[in-house]
């Protein structure tokens, strides 16, 4: 063993006094990360609130242009993916390898379905000239405030989609490693941590949905 490798091993074994401590540190670390994410997304929601308080009529008019049916179905897709993820965490905890891989696969598939539906929405909005910029078209009196709404729409859903894509990649890697190499190579706890992240991204969407899809529908 080289001295560098020995130092590495010593550091690795010295970092935690036992498995429980390692688990707890892992759990806490993930939640601290999610806390920073709460603040990160929170700022966007607050920006939305400010703009909506300032331009209520324009936000109502612009909000009617988002796709109610697709937004609602996508919420259902994401909530269902969270069910699959929660079950995958359970399956991993009791070391049911096949169930874990199957349920992670279901989570991943639903995540991809969400992004595909979102893609169709973006396409429709692009064709309707609702993408902010030189090509943005809207009723002249409310144009600027409506453009602000769609700025927020694309930034909020876009950053959410990036988070979801990262989650899909992480779940894909974990599912493959559990499937091919088992829980010795990929600990059940890593499934649990990916689950926390996935559920968090789901919660962000739970609040994006009414803000962007349910304004002035009556």
């Amino acid at each position, binding site marked *: 063993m080289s001295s560098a490798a020995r130092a590495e091993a010593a550091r690795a074994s010295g970092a935690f006094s036992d498995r429980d401590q390692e688990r707890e540190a892992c759990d806490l670390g993930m*939640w601290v990360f999610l806390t920073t994410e709460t603040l990160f997304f929170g700022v966007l929601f607050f920006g939305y609130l400010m703009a909506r308080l300032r331009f209520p009529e324009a936000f109502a008019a612009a909000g009617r242009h988002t796709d109610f049916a697709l937004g609602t179905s996508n919420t259902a897709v994401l909530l269902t993916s969270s069910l699959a993820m929660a079950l995958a965490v359970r399956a991993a905890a009791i070391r049911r390898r096949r169930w874990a891989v199957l349920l992670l696969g279901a989570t991943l598939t639903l995540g991809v379905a969400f992004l595909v539906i979102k893609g169709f929405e973006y396409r429709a909005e692009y064709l309707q000239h609702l993408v902010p910029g030189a090509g943005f078209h809207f009723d002249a009196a409310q144009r600027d405030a409506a453009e602000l709404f769609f700025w927020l729409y694309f930034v909020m859903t876009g950053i959410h989609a990036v988070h979801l894509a990262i989650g899909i990649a992480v779940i894909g890697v974990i599912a493959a490693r559990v499937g091919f190499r088992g829980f010795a190579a990929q600990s059940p706890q890593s499934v649990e941590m990916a689950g926390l992240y996935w559920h968090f991204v789901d919660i962000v969407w*739970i609040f994006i949905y009414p803000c962007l899809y349910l304004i002035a529908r009556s």
Partner: protein
Amino acid sequence: MKALALRSHVLVWLALMALLALSAGSSLLPLGVFNLVSNLAIGIAKAALVLYFFMRIGKSRPIVRIAAAAGIVWLALLCGLALSDVLFRTAGS
């Protein structure tokens, strides 16, 4: 399958779906300001279900719950202070 706790998980999912139907449905009714209130309340209820049953925050150690609460408390603090400025600013108007 029992160890998967399938039943309780599916029940939570059904509750989430019912809440989703409720928020989508209620938004089609002209309830004035209560559209906003019900949407927000339903969103909080859905988030609470996910946090409690899927993320199992209730089973976490206190330090983890403090970490999770810190984000929400801090956000509420910052937004509250910023709102108190924006909503009640009178200078110059």
